């Protein structure tokens, strides 16, 4: 396991047109970890991911991978270390799973180079890791949402990068498929040491699957650290402008966010007094 690549941003400012989306961001993403970025809509999460993978040129500051500025690294060289699965990738009509996954080999090939045994091995390994071997000859169009997402992840895996960025990999999936995808990413992280950075909307899944959480609020870093450090009622209030209770997730022991909303404020108040001790976080339990 040699996944020791460090990705960081230094005083990074990003924007579209006149609008700055991210301002003066300093962030280091720990190698070998699963980092989840959370934040309200339009807070710059996707923009940040796109910039990290060279899709968006910074207005100021820089993105640095292993001491080299990402935007000065040759595109293919970067694509052998850093992969990105965009939020809504385009599936060409009629493409088969095998073909789509094979496209992930692009950074390892040249214009007229032949397909190698190594390419085959990478594709086969990606299919296995995502349990899509059985689907190999099927057309991607006819797969379920969960299967399709696994196939896209397989495409990114065939790229064989040590770092994988994913923009909302669980959007449009039902809860069981969300868990399936997140479990798969955790497997990759644990068995291959792949550094994973992803944007998630679901705070509870974010807290459960992240080694480290990054919370952005209006283009600035609000908090970064372990889920326990970051996912507090204060954070939820600052980042989302919403009151909540944060309790311990009885399944994972991680923080669990319960939004309150206008109609349940009184219930939440009374619950605060009568909450059973088994649900509140035992002091000093970690």
């Amino acid at each position, binding site marked *: 396991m040699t996944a020791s690549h460090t990705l960081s941003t230094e005083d990074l400012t990003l924007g579209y047109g006149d609008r700055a989306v991210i301002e003066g961001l300093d962030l280091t993403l720990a190698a070998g970890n699963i980092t989840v970025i959370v934040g309200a809509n339009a807070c710059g999460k996707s923009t940040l991911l796109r910039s990290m993978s060279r899709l968006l040129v910074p207005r100021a500051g820089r993105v640095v991978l292993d001491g080299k500025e990402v935007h000065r690294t040759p595109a293919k060289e970067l694509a052998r270390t850093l992969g990105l699965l965009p939020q809504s990738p385009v599936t060409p009509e009629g493409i088969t799973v095998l073909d789509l996954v094979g496209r992930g080999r692009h950074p390892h090939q040249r214009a007229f180079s032949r397909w190698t045994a190594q390419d085959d091995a990478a594709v*086969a390994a990606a299919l296995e890791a995502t349990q899509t071997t059985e689907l190999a000859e099927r057309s991607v169009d006819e797969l379920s949402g969960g299967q399709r997402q696994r196939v896209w992840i397989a495409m990114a895996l065939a790229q064989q990068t040590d770092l994988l960025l994913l923009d909302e990999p669980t959007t449009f999936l039902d809860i069981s498929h969300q868990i399936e995808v997140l479990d798969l990413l955790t497997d990759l992280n644990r068995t291959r040491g792949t550094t994973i950075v992803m944007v998630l909307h679901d705070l509870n899944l974010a807290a459960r699957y992240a080694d480290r959480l990054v919370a952005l609020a209006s283009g600035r870093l609000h908090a970064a650290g372990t889920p326990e450090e970051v996912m507090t009622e204060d954070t939820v209030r600052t980042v989302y402008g919403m009151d909540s209770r944060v309790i311990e997730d009885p399944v994972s022991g991680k923080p669990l966010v319960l939004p309150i909303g206008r109609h349940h404020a009184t219930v939440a108040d009374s619950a605060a007094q009568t909450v059973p001790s088994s649900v509140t976080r035992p002091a000093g339990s970690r």
Partner: protein
Amino acid sequence: MSAPVVPAPPTLRAVTRARVRRAYRRRLLVSTLLILVVAAFATTLMAGHTFYPASDVLRVITGEQVPGASFTVGTLRLPRAVLALTAGFSFGIAGVTFQTMLRNPLASPDIIGISAGASAAAAIAIVTFSLSETEVSALAIAAALGVALLVYTLAFRDGVAGTRLILIGIGISALLDSITSYVLSRAGDWDLQEAMRWLTGSLNGTTWEETVPTVLAVLALGPVLLFQSRNLSALSLGDDTASALGVRVERTRVTVIVAAVGLIAFATAAAGPIAFVAFLSGPIAARLTGTGGSLLVPAGLVGSLLVLVADFTGQYAFDTRYPVGVVTGVLGAPYLVYLIVRTNRAGGSL
């Protein structure tokens, strides 16, 4: 590199087998198309109102004087067949390039005004200014590039969305077609056959002066597109994914557009905007290959085959001689209608 992950032997075998099978199928298809193109080319040279055996045709090609054949084959049929070959190839390969890049079968250069631009420029150059062959080609290329740039600029708003580009292209195309019609209507002694060349495309009266530039264009620009073919496949997964795979999206797009527009322009300057060849070749090639692998060469060969067969049909199958564009138009128009009906039913991409 990540810790090397070794796939289970059965999976690896399955993947390898599928890949080998596909490569075999593709080679088979390309060879079959190649044989068909050669057969159509040979037929065009030999058959007609007078039949010349292959031996005569070969003697003419190698430069011998053969009574009758030297004129009919050498002067009339050969340049015409070569132009059918190269123009068809140019339309096919450029058409599929646009369709792949813009991820829409409607986005072919003959639908979005690029051929119309080259055609209008060529018609004006010849009818109004009586320019030479080279000047006509140069003007057609400039106009095609200009139209491509115009359509692209008008359609650009935070990136190019396929639908907007296609609708704008169709509008520009109609405008340019009306200019062509106007110019032709002002040409006093303009004969209908020649007028058809600029309206639907025709190979009638083709000479080497028209043919040679298209041959050179295919030899120069074809390889440029082939060199970009892997980048083009990656681009069909969306700009973000392509970029994440290490494709320099903008550079690829500009290179590919210039090369494809150049091919279209040279072919149009010589043969007119042969209707629907650019539009049809890609989808036909895609049906034949199934998915996987680049469509560039198959689409080019399909284009050549379409033009060779359509021209031969137009010349000899009916009592009247029809220009090639009329024949391909008859094939293409129903497909266009089908495609529009189908996309609207799907409700999405158009």
